[in-house]
């Protein structure tokens, strides 16, 4: 019996060994490395020089604009996504004909899995000089500039992250007990108060999951602001690319990255707290 148990444990360890090695070498160690770097100094020729100083963190205000822009963009972008996504998720979960439901859902998932770069590029094309502005000029409206504006960035964000917002809301609406809706109507509630008091409330875990996922990914977004914003407005993603690949100030970049991760963790915890308090339910776990 003892030998059996030993063999069982050895096999388990062997099965988990490659994944453990991967997680340690390419997730835990890199994270420890940037934490260590963030209290170091920039070597004169660029890169890192060992030190123990909080100077990098004290220097964070030097990138205040990037932080400010990102902190504005992430919630606003996530909110814009939510406003477009909710009716779609609602329709898919509660109104769409049964045989269309899976097909429509697949149509939502497919763009999420195709290249964000290629899809964002499509908008450069549409918003650029030969796209919509050319059409507008044709009907007499001249000199409209669409690309390289904050509006273009917001549009790109809604476009890119919409599927990620629709999915968790769909999941929570789909799980909703429809008898509750009937009960609410039987008890004389108007459709609006049924929606607000039952449907919306019970879908809040999904809303919070979608909102926090999109917000966290937006905190590190680089492609959309660069391609549709013309790289003129600086975001944390741009600051990180600049600090690591151009000016090679690794310690300062590491301090920014650590701060970014810290903000993400705070967002996740806050979202979890809020949705537990509001609906008494846990967030929808997509992953």
């Amino acid at each position, binding site marked *: 019996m003892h030998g059996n148990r030993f063999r069982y444990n050895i096999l388990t360890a062997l099965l988990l060994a490659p994944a453990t090695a991967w997680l340690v070498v390419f997730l835990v160690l890199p994270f420890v490395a940037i934490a260590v770097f963030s209290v170091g100094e920039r070597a004169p020729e660029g890169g890192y020089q060992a030190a123990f100083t909080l100077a990098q963190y004290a220097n964070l205000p030097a990138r205040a604009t990037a932080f400010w822009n990102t902190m504005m963009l992430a919630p606003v972008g996530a909110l814009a996504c939510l406003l477009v996504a909710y009716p779609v998720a609602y329709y898919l979960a509660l109104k769409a004909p049964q045989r269309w439901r899976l097909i429509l859902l697949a149509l939502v998932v497919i763009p999420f899995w195709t*290249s964000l770069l*290629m899809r964002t590029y499509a908008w450069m094309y549409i918003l650029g000089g030969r796209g919509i502005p050319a059409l507008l000029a044709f009907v007499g409206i001249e000199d409209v500039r669409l690309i390289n504006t904050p509006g273009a960035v917001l549009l790109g964000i809604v476009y890119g992250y919409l599927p990620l917002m629709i999915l968790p809301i769909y999941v929570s609406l789909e799980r909703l007990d429809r008898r509750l809706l009937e009960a609410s109507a039987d008890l004389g509630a108007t459709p609006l108060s049924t929606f607000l008091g039952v449907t919306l409330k019970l879908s809040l875990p999904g809303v919070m999951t979608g909102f926090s996922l999109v917000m966290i990914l937006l905190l590190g977004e680089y492609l959309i602001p660069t391609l549709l914003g013309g790289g003129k407005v600086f975001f944390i993603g741009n600051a990180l690319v600049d600090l690591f690949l151009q000016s090679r100030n690794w310690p300062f970049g590491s301090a920014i990255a650590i701060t970014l*991760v810290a903000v993400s963790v705070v967002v996740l915890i806050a979202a979890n707290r809020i949705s537990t308090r509001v609906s008494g339910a846990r967030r929808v776990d997509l992953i």
Partner: protein
Amino acid sequence: MRAFVTAVFAFLYLPIALVVLFSFNAGRHASEFTGFSVQWYGTALSNPFLVEALKNSLFIATTSALLAAVCGTAAALGLARVGLRTRAVFDALMGAAIVVPGVVIGISTLVALVQLFGVLNPFLASIWPNDQPPRLSLGYGSIIAAHGLFSMALVTMIVGTRLASLDRNLVEASSDLYATPLTTFRSIVLPQIMPAVVAGFLLAFTFSFDDFIVAFFVAGAQTTLPIYVFASIRRGVTPEINAIATIVLVASVLLVVLAQWQLRQRQPSN
């Protein structure tokens, strides 16, 4: 509400449709469609830099997805055998691998690898018998490893879900009938989880093939297709890029559809 939903679907697919349409444009301009032609596909596929980037991406995506499929499946099988606490630690780490933004994964991997190479390269040089010791540097290996992290977490998650719905009775029946654990695994467990493994592989491949930001940091001197496309669209939109974008989009859509189809295959009947 239906009108709104229809509009959203149009919003999702119209830009893609336009890129595909204009990749067949005979003219150079985006504003007018001057006739049907496949010339830009020819131009794209005879551009040596683009073909090189495409080959790199195919190699990297295949290797990292294979690695992820094997290690991720092993991990899912292992996790089905451990206690709740170990499981929670793994789930948290894998969740982090998926949720942490690409820029952070990219830079932290870059920083850690450069530091590691700084230690390993002199060490290799000191123990190498002849004058030309191998030099570790950023490139294929680092991109494959970084993509492997996310992909492995994804495979573990997909296969784990499938394992959870596996009919335990079959496994018990098999061992009651004196099948060895290996036989049980080969003839009961593996066929049941295979669709999930294949779906995980396909999604991992798609992710790696499409990824720009992680590769951008850890590619060193290598170029992948997204890196090439990013560099060229910053120089200006060309029909050649439309052609390559169309190829990539069509390929990813096919792979995702194939993966979804695999996931729906042979659903356990409970």
